[in-house]
């Protein structure tokens, strides 16, 4: 009788514990404020204080770019045509043909940048990806080339963390550079080995590198930064038949990675080395009714275990959503958003007509 009583108590305790565990992995949205900053009321970027670098979030919309001042709830914007890359020090606008690159300081002061390349910015890295996709150049905020590298095959994947820049190529080669251009990791491959790099991601703290390679089956390789280099920890097979280039991001808490190939979205648990395909039904929303008509692009990690995904309609350019996933579970959908920005406890969604700031997110 006593044994049965203890069993019952243990059973209840297990249920309570498991419930508590599940709750702790789900987001407890404690949003303290939601502010919508309209572009129509935004300030001109020329008046932004040059010394303001804290608490500002750079963003790119579809025809305006600028900075959201989180402390004062202000927007500073500048119109642009074509495409743009922006960071806290300024931005570069360019056209699709890469023939008209313009470099701007944060206050909008402009100078032409002579290059035939697309600019790519992340984590204070300013990279020019050459127009033939076979070379990169690191530039400073004035556009001066600090160093450049050429690869024997087209670049198919690029990512950066605060310390490193990682490049993957069509033949399966991987290079990870530090800020001085020294190769921290260099793996040369050949097309004979069928190890094409489809995507890669560096963790924000530079500790992990995840590589998606191989034609069939694909492999997810996990590397960890140890003793001044990246060492391979393990690899997992990924049984998906797709030839698409992937976009990827590792969650800030290094628990998992999210990767997308066209209309396919995958959650990969780094610690337990398993993956699962995120079904369209789990992601909700209007756009997923006909899954072949949408494309997912991983925008990046937003803090802790949150990752932002852009879901866009293939046919209707105007139709897009931003999905926020927590451990692969949908926790927020920003209908009509074009992009997401984040810093500490603030998440922002970029719309056609303004930026929405959600403050106080605490997963």
């Amino acid at each position, binding site marked *: 009788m006593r044994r049965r009583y203890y069993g019952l108590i243990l059973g209840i305790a297990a249920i309570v514990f498991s419930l508590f565990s599940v709750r702790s992995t789900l987001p407890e949205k404690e949003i303290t404020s939601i502010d919508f900053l309209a572009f129509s009321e935004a300030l001109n970027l020329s008046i932004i204080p040059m010394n303001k670098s804290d608490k500002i979030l750079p963003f*790119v*919309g*579809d025809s305006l770019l600028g900075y959201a001042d989180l402390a004062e709830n202000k927007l500073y914007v500048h119109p642009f045509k074509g*495409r*743009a*890359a922006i960071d806290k020090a300024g931005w570069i606008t360019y056209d*699709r*043909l*890469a*023939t008209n690159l313009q470099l701007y300081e944060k206050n909008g002061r402009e100078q032409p940048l*002579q*290059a*035939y*390349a*697309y600019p*790519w910015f992340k984590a204070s890295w300013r990279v*020019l*990806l*050459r*127009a*033939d*996709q*076979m*070379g990169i*150049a690191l530039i400073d905020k004035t556009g001066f*080339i600090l160093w*450049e590298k*050429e*690869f*024997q*095959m*087209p*670049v*198919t994947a690029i990512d950066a963390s605060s310390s490193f820049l990682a490049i993957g190529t*069509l033949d399966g*080669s991987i290079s990870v550079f530090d800020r001085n251009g020294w190769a921290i990791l*260099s793996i*040369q491959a*050949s*097309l*004979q080995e069928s190890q*094409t790099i*489809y995507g890669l991601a560096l963790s924000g703290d530079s500790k992990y590198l995840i590589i998606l390679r191989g*034609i069939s089956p694909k492999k997810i390789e996990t590397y960890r930064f140890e003793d001044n280099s990246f060492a391979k920890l393990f690899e997992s097979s990924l049984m998906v*038949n*797709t*030839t*698409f*280039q992937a976009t990827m991001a590792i969650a800030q808490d290094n628990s998992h990675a999210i990767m997308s190939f*066209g209309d396919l979205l995958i959650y990969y648990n780094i610690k337990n080395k398993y993956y699962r395909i995120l079904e369209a039904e789990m992601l909700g929303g209007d756009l997923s009714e006909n899954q072949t008509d949408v494309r997912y*692009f991983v*925008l990046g990690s937003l803090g802790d275990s949150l990752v932002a995904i*852009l879901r*866009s309609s*293939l046919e209707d*350019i105007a139709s*897009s959503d931003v999905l926020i996933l927590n451990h692969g579970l949908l926790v927020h959908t920003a209908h009509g958003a*074009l*992009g997401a920005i984040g810093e500490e406890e603030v998440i922002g969604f*970029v719309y056609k007509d303004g930026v929405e700031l959600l403050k106080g997110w605490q997963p």
Partner: protein
Amino acid sequence: MAAMKGKYCFLMAYLWLTTLLGALDFQIPKVLDISGFGTILADQVRLGISGEYNGKGRFYGMIPRSDVQLISADKTLEAPSSGTVFYSQVEANLPTVFSFPLGGALAVIHPDKFVSLTSGLDSFQVIESSFRSSKEMQKSSAIKKGEKLSGGVGSGVYTSKSFGLRLFDVKNELWMNTIFLAPWIEDNTSPIIRSARLIKAGTDNKILFDIIEANKKERRITCPQGAYSLFVDARDIIISNSHFYSAPYRIEAILDGEIVINASFMAARASGGGISFLGNPPPSQRAIGEDCSYQTGQFIILRGKHDFLLQVNDFAGNQTDMRISITSY
């Protein structure tokens, strides 16, 4: 300057290429215009837009191109060969997502370990091909030779009706010049030598001798003996009346009847350091001089009087010569 025919070089090159290509059934589809392998990458794009670009300043991206640029009559391009798609790239339709410069692109593996990359494709085409490839992975060719690939309004750095096509020989690690695989080309014009300069090695490129200027005047130059680098800017028009131009196929320097430089754009070697053009070490920008001419090689001029002949051939075997006398002290 004299122009003459030299089909022998072309035939040798063709035979060498066909040996390399083995059983590969690859043909550049007939198009309206073409800009060849080795042509300065950034120049051609600006040219394609303005039609009169003639810039000389060097900047990032001015390297010899490892593909051919094809300008189609309509928005489609016939697949040059059959094969299986193993990599596909699409362009994001929103400016908030980074898109890669090659735009919509398909990498296809062909028989005999050749890989082609077609770029500037329409995203729908890429998605359709990828989908098909996924379904039939390893079973049959996802792309059939002659199949229409659509470019739509252009993607990546390509304008409308414009495509990029490159071919890689996996076994020999070479980016191949595919212009020899376009039998429909009828090129009867000789290449034009725009500049030819000898620069004394080890002198910070300051001591130079302009062969073109010498050729116009006394047809001779006087220079100190030593090692010299030869920089040549030569262009070839493949399609008559086109404003697109191509790099020449071969540049030869003959000193006193002996070939001292023999540089060609037959193929470019790929290695860990990048791409090697005209026999220069990688990266590819080493094949380009400060004034965007081609660095063709180095040779030694000893004290005495010499006969110097510069020969520039195009892909069809048309040739342009320039002869001067060199007196070295």
